[in-house]
């Protein structure tokens, strides 16, 4: 059933966010530390184990795949609710600080990527599905 997939996703999500909040409290910061990342790892591990045992049927997968596919529209909505006006009104100091941080860090991507050998490019994409 589709809801099993959605339920699995929701359980991983809540566990991850919960652990991220605990981790944040543990090291004494007012922020969630890696909650989403932990949730992703949980989903990867659980779904992998279920697939290997043949317990993840097609409808169940659809319950996860739907949310994965709705990701870009959600990001578009996220963009549409940003405080763009504040960013533009921050003046030259805010703009320069933000922009230089971006440029500097982008330049470092290939440098750090070289550590431990280059990654394999992903295969050519299949049909575009958004």
């Amino acid at each position, binding site marked *: 059933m589709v809801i099993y997939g959605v339920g699995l*996703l929701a359980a991983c*999500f809540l566990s*991850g966010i919960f652990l991220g909040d605990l981790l944040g409290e543990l*090291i*004494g*910061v007012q*922020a969630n*530390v890696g909650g*989403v*990342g932990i*949730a*992703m*790892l949980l*989903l*990867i591990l659980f779904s*992998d184990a279920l697939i290997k045992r043949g317990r993840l049927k097609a409808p169940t*997968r659809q319950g*996860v*795949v739907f*949310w*994965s596919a709705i990701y870009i*529209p959600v*990001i*578009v*909505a*996220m*963009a*549409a*609710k*940003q*405080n*763009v*006006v*504040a*960013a533009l*009104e*921050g003046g030259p*100091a*805010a*703009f*320069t*600080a*933000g*922009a230089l*941080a*971006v440029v*500097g*860090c*982008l330049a470092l*991507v*290939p440098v*750090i*990527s070289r*550590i*431990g050998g*280059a*990654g394999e*490019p992903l295969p050519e*994409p299949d049909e575009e599905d*958004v």
Partner: protein
Amino acid sequence: MGILQTLGDVMVKNGLITAFAFVGIVVWLSYLVSNKLTAGRIHGSAIAIFVGLVLAWVGGVVTGGANGLADITVLGGVGVMGGAMLRDFTIVATAFGVNFDEIRRAGIGAVISLLVGVLGSFAVGAAVAYAFGYTDAVSMTTIGAGAATYIVGPVTGSAIGASSEVIALSIAAGLVKSMMVMIGTPFVAKAIGLDNAKSAMIFGGLMGTTSGVAGGLAATDKRLVPYGAMTATFYTGLGCLLGPSVFYFAVRALTG
């Protein structure tokens, strides 16, 4: 009651559904523009995200609020659809089918990218703050933290007692960063080798802004999203940890 009034009421009462329909139209038009006007050269999702930002600007100008388009009453649902809950839920969903070995392979590089990303952004932001006349340790630290992300900025600033003007500036710096990453990533992706899981994880660790990384990678290649998001999600926490402590002490030591 007029027809428009009734329509408006329906849209407000069913805000999230209205947002689905609205974003559906935005995405559809964006892919149309991508295919017809750019022959597919600029990704439809990149255009859609850019359109989203423009609409957010319009919303901010029209309403004077802080939530972009979501402050327009009939489009309030956009705020729910694009809020942290659904954003994080769908990001987690993208991890489905990800290869765990790829993540392990990036291991040490991902950790280095997080540290370099946070400290590098801090340093650049603080230096810029100094150049613009914010020479006290508290302001330099806060603006530096804002150059990390727009969450690290205010968290750090309030912890060390920065003025609200400086905190606002740090948020603006973080917003500029997030938007530049959203818009710019697809254009530089090739030049910085952003075509595999490993470099995507390092990209996420270096840039750190979850919304920027999520949007930028979505506009580049959707399959890179889970890898970048995975590391980016540790960035804000690390920044909030280092900002008011290690980084503040370092700046204070340097400025005397």
